[in-house]
């Protein structure tokens, strides 16, 4: 940024811990090791963080190479403030379980909604036929 005023570059973010949000909804936390002109990322010691409600769980994943077009946003994590969160960390099994429960509840409510609409003669196109973006 300093040598290129008015521009943004990831060069300054190298070797720092980042949180990356992907288009498929995943949240990755890892050290940004390398980039290229497409903003493809190499993340080191990556952890996939699953959030459900006030809880979260980390799944260690190792090294990630992310194609730039799949990134929604990313931001640097302040290591000092990192632990300063109201969220509660739980084990992987627990968070996966919570996620499953949440997905199930969502599906149930979705099903009820579609049913109700069908009864009223309305038809909502299914999500998979729509452009997901």
């Amino acid at each position, binding site marked *: 940024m300093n040598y290129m005023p008015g521009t943004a570059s990831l060069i300054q973010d190298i070797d720092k*811990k980042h949180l990356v949000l992907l288009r498929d909804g995943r949240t990755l*936390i890892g050290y940004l090791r*390398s980039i290229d002109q497409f903003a493809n990322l190499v993340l080191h010691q990556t952890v996939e963080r699953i959030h459900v409600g006030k809880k979260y769980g*980390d799944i260690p994943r190792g090294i990630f190479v992310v194609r730039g077009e799949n990134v929604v946003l990313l931001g640097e994590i302040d290591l000092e403030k990192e632990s300063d969160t109201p969220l509660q960390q739980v084990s992987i099994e627990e968070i996966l379980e919570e996620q499953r429960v949440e997905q199930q509840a969502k599906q149930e409510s979705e099903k009820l909604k579609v049913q109700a609409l069908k009864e009223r003669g309305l038809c909502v196109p299914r999500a998979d036929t729509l452009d997901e973006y």
Partner: protein
Amino acid sequence: MAEEDEELDLYNEMTFGIEQDCTEEDTSKPPMPPEMSPELAKAVAEETEAGEDLGPEAAEELEEPQEEGAMEMEQLGSELEEELGTEDQEEDQEPCEEPNDLGDPAVMRAVQSKPTLESQDSAVLDSRIGACWADFGKEDVDKAIVQVLERPPPSTSVALDFLGSPVQRGYRGSPRLKRPDIRLVPPKSFPQRFLRQQSPLVPRSPCSPRPFAPPRRPPLLFTSNQTTGYASPTRFQPMPPNISRPPRPLAMHFGPMSPSLDPALFFSPSASGQLNLSVPSHLTQLHPQHQRILTQRQQQSISSKKLWSPKVDPYAGLMTSKEKDWVIKVEMIQLQSENTDDDYYYQTYYHRLEHKQAEEELLGGRNKQEPPKLVTPFIQKVETYNSVVRIAGSLGQVAVSTCYSPRRAIDAVHHALVEEATGSHRLRALHKIEKLFLQLLEVEEMQRKMSLAAEEQEQKSQDAERIYQALKIRACSSEEEAEDEFLQLLCVQKGKKLTARLLPHLSPEQAEKILLTITHHLPFLMKKDVLDESLPLLYSPLNKVVGRMTFSKLIEVLQEMSRPLPESPELPVTMALKNQFGISLLYSLLSHGERLLSSDMPLEPRSGDFEMWTDTVFLVARELSQVPKASLVEPLFLPSNLLSLFCRYLDKQTVVHLEAKMECSPLPSEAAMLC
């Protein structure tokens, strides 16, 4: 100091106190070694990873020195005195009647454990491979001289844990997590973890910082030239003398060390931050001075822990500065452009920066600072290559392969006959719109470059003319509207946009011709616009055109609106009142007429103009009053002089009625007097 002395005394006492017992029992216990040896052998055998075949071997070997007497066993004992702290200890101690006695006065207590790395290789200072997990379970922990574990705890993930999550210990899979007692560690105890990895490296090279794969515990490393006075290094898995070969599961990189690493770290024996120094352990006791030194080191490391982690990141620098420069260069090339006016972000950024600096300047009264402008280096863009190489006199094309086009098919030359090929009118219309739009953009681009030289202006008007001609406007044609290309263009929203943007660049006559066409075909256009509702796009430029028109021309246009239609009983005027664009255009026309009349300018009307004018006004008024209020659409803009216009020709009652209908603001009192 007294404290120190005390400790020393204690130490000595323990050391030499035992001696008494040792010397006595030594003579009376020659058979001990043979008894011990199988036990030892057993212990040793258990502890090696591939211990099966070594067992009998070991036993054999151990039996040999028997004859030579107890001294060798003592040596063995002293070698083995290194603590273990694991399960095997209990086993080991059982068979010994005198567990603490190996006949050596220097030995405080002998513990049968397997030889540590340190004992085998004097270069090893800390072979603490994953020792820390075990430490948690036990209070007894040794400070410097480290144990080598027989069996590593399963969660031997020695990947540097910057994330500090205990969950990460379970790197290998969830089963690991079910053993919370094995979980590691003080979250940021960096050096210790580092050293864990380091240990296998230390005998090899002091400078290998990068185990990229989390290693499983490497097998015991003993080079064959390690002499211990002990009969057999062969009983353990000897590593080949080739030191550079990394242990199998550990992918070592002996590449260039990261400059940020401090080699001194590797040798710090203060591996574990959590060591409990005050607990006397049944393991080997350190000499108090040694202990003190280690304590100090540890304290240092703990206190500087905070600073440490950010400084020493062994994986930093993966992206070299050369690569960074390359990326920056590519980004610069991408940024490079001749025309920064199109760059929204660039413009916004600099506007904001300038505002801010202006503000600061006002407040602070500082000297005017020039905002730093983005300077892209002059990097020659790659010449566009000719995709088709034609060599004079050759038949056909030559396939030229470059790094930009490794495999290039023969180019199909695109001949501009595609539009005619498409049968559909609509497609053709769309195609034409796109083409003309591009031309329009060029015209606008030229316009935007404010300082236009004479030639450029001419150029610009020529280009605009070209577009106009391409539109093929046939005003007031009685032909089938479907055949009229211009109208077809106008049916498409983009076509309307095109026309709207083109109008300012045309000459007045051309613009008026367009207005005439639109007005002539207004019902058609309004009908086609029901879905899009994009006609209002045209209002603004047309309004300007109207504002410049002469009275005669105005009348001509108004005539179009009053012309009765063949297919419909309604007049265009009536239909216009029900359409937002239509009513706005109508009002605009009337307003302009009124303005012309009320001004003192010479009008130069043609004969019949005034009659036409009054007829039109009456007509509009009549239609306005007849149309139900519900169908009346609110115009985009309601000119203020309409009521005055009506006042001039109509009675007061009607005017009031119209006023209500049009929802005009009431007339000023003077005008009201006139009515």
